[in-house]
């Protein structure tokens, strides 16, 4: 690139811990040109966030220090700048958008004030002028009613709107460079597409340079000019998007690209239909007109107690040995359905029967059977494991309570389970805190398998993981279902993963099943417009398939509420 706006040379960042010194960023050099979008990818913990925080010298702890290298912003070395100068650089020159808007927006300050705060400070405007400017920004980032929404608090917004507000705050100081740290990870695909589009629009309008951090190569393919790949604090390779995507050099990059879910997967196509749903086989699980409603709000003086229908009128049959995917946006009722099926959430009406036993009629017998023959893998790998127990203790407890394995054989069985999910045996003595997300997720799967279940419900168990690990976990499931004749209900809001793994897909929307069918069929010929939108919003790794291309999809999105997740009372 010709005129480099930002130029990083040999940046070294180290952390000083009790045990010694660890290098977190290792001789990283980068350039960012004006108007350019740089995609920074890499697995979790590779140092992407740290690198960007080093640019504005906002390191997360006093133990982490920049130990070498230069950061030149328009020729000025930021590593040598004074603290006062940095105040100008932050916000004024380099704006930040954070991954998690919920925790980065001040919950007790009005959205508008958070935007105008920066304006007043950096541009020295009066309160009134700043308010006007902030409302202007709110308009730009797509708030339908900026004057009113100026006075809203973050918690009154949906996730998507919060992320927009976060962008607004970053824009408030009119920076030259915008750093967006995984701005869409927490959002579902449709919203993700909107946010990405907004970022690109703003870039074009304002001539901004953007550093976009993500672990999703698809997003990078759709939005960036250049790509930089990081791993273990080192920059593996960087270059123009097409070069990297088509001719990756580093084995890690190659692996990353290959495991992207939007890649058509040969194995998936080759999965033989192991169990044909023959009419003589009785369904393992039957769900009939299931309704789950939650009370929302309501108090002594409020006459109408509102309820939220999380699941409304779902009917489904699951055959033994089947692998079924349940997809749908956030809040569409997938988790609630799973929990209701397993008797973890009270059912409002309808029936669930497991192997012919109706849960409503024979509650204790049904629950006892469920507990022994089904298991669930949870969405959040860290929170689903008791932080105080080692993996060994955890598995031993399950085996002991379930009582299917004689006490003497428990240690042996634990070993087998770990082997099965691909964890080394030494993990017996580890606690969740000392394990990576992927490792925790495997431990969670091992726990589910310890029950020796007929049915496993996996609730978005890969959403929080990066693609390489996602791929590994999916491989484990595929292997397990093949080997052990497991029935699997796989919940996700990401269609691409489901397409790879499942024979049958169920699409949920607002608590109802809107579409159901064999995977290839649904993906090839979606019937419901929502399914179409979902499929279209998957960022494809092929840069030539543009994001949100079809005009009809835009209309579709417009007709839907921005975020149907939270229906506040």
């Amino acid at each position, binding site marked *: 690139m010709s005129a480099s706006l930002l130029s990083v040379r040999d940046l070294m960042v180290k952390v000083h811990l009790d045990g*010694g*010194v*660890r*290098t977190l960023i290792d001789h990283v050099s980068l350039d960012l040109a004006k108007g350019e979008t740089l995609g920074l990818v890499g697995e979790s913990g590779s140092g992407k966030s740290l690198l960007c925080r080093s640019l504005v010298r906002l390191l997360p702890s006093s133990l982490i220090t920049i130990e070498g290298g230069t950061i030149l912003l328009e020729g000025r070395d930021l590593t040598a700048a004074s603290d006062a100068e940095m105040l100008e650089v932050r916000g004024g020159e380099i704006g930040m958008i954070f991954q998690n808007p919920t925790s980065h927006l001040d919950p007790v300050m009005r959205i508008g004030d958070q935007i105008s705060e920066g304006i007043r400070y950096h541009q020295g405007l009066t309160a009134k002028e700043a308010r006007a400017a902030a409302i202007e920004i709110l308009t730009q980032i797509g708030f339908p009613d900026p004057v009113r929404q100026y006075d809203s608090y973050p918690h009154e917004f949906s996730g998507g709107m919060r992320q927009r507000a976060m962008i607004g705050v970053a824009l408030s100081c009119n920076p030259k460079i915008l750093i967006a740290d995984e701005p869409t990870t927490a959002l579902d695909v449709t919203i993700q597409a909107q946010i990405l589009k907004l970022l690109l629009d703003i870039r074009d309008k304002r001539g901004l340079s953007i550093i976009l951090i993500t672990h999703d190569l698809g997003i990078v393919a759709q939005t960036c000019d250049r790509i930089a790949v990081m791993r273990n604090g080192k920059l593996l390779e960087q270059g123009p998007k097409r070069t990297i995507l088509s001719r990756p050099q580093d084995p890690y990059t190659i692996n990353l690209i290959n495991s992207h879910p939007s890649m058509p997967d040969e194995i998936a196509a080759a999965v033989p239909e192991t169990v044909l749903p023959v009419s003589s086989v009785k369904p393992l699980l039957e769900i009939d007109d299931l309704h789950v409603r939650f009370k929302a709000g309501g108090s002594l003086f409020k006459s109408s107690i509102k309820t939220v229908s999380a699941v409304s009128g779902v009917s489904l049959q699951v055959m033994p040995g089947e692998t079924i995917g349940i997809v749908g946006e956030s809040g569409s009722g997938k988790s609630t359905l799973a929990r209701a099926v397993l008797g973890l959430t009270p059912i409002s009406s309808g029936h669930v029967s497991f192997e012919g036993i109706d849960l409503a009629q024979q509650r204790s017998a049904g629950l006892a059977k469920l*507990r022994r023959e089904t*298991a669930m893998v949870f969405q959040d790998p860290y929170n689903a494991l008791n932080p*105080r127990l080692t993996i060994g203790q955890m598995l031993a407890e399950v085996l002991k*309570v379930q009582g299917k394995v004689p006490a003497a054989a428990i240690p042996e069985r634990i070993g087998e389970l770990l082997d099965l999910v691909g964890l080394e045996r030494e993990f017996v003595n580890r606690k969740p805190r000392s394990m990576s997300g992927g490792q925790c997720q495997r431990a969670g799967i091992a726990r589910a398998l310890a029950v020796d279940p007929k049915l496993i419900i996996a609730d978005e168990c890969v959403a929080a993981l990066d693609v390489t690990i996602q791929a590994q976990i999916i491989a484990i499931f595929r292997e397990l279902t093949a080997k052990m004749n497991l029935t699997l209900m796989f919940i996700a809001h990401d269609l691409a993963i489901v397409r790879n793994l499942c024979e049958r897909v169920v699409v949920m929307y607002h608590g109802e099943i809107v579409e159901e069918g064999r995977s290839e069929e649904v993906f090839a010929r979606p019937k419901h417009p929502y399914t179409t939108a979902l499929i279209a919003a998957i960022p494809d790794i092929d840069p030539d398939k543009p994001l949100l291309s079809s005009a009809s999809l835009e209309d579709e999105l417009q007709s839907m509420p921005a975020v149907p997740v939270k229906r506040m009372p």
Partner: protein
Amino acid sequence: MSVEALAPSAAAWRHFLGRRLTLVIGAGMLLFFLLLAIAAPLVAPYDPILQNADVRLQSPSFAHLFGTDNFGRDILSRVIWGARIDLQIAVIGVIFPFLIGTTVGTIAGFFGGIVDAVFMRLVDIILAFPFLVLMLSIIAILGPGLGSFYIAMALVGWVSYARLIRAQMLVLKGSDYAVAAVSLGFSRPRIMFRHLLPNAIAGSIVFSMSDATLVLLSGAAVSYLGLGVQPPLAEWGVMVAEGQSFITTAWWITLFPGLSIVCLAFGFSMLGDALGELLGVHE
């Protein structure tokens, strides 16, 4: 991520001190008092209740490092023996509220609904109930002395713990690992006590350290009202209260037991801070 085997840098060293120093000071202080209490018969120079009319109200000297009181009793010896009683007050005065509060909080938080509502109203009542009325009534009913004091503390003190634990339980019982435990067919007591409680209890442990100080001070307040331990036992709060008559003439009678309370309180609060950091709890 190369780990450079270096001598700990200045920053890391400072960090270590900042974090462990509180632990060392706190635990060290408590250990000191504990040893003092255990070894009281060995280290105390005099019999703590022995009166000696010849040396009444003497200011600190080599014979009596902390001076003597109006009966000629050696203050140093009384302070040393007092450590026994005051440590006991701090420990027992905290342990029972802790146990009761933890149990109630766990049950209320876990079961919710009517159980919770009943317990929480009870908590409201006790919180709104003037502590002193309860304390004085119980002491009056059971007679002054440590037993009544402990009972009064237990009756009142548990609410803080119950509230802390309940709040934690409410959060934890919705957590994925609690739901996971249910889905695995674990029994309720197992889920409550093996899975949730250990994760909920850290805050209470830290709180119990500052609570120990409050208990000591409540004891001193009770002594001020004349309802402290039975004479002639040496207890710091009582010593301060008794020494009040001499506050302008014989300052040493109140100062040394007073300082002892402060030091013990300091030890507890340091240990509390250290535990808070170790257990990752923020008050």
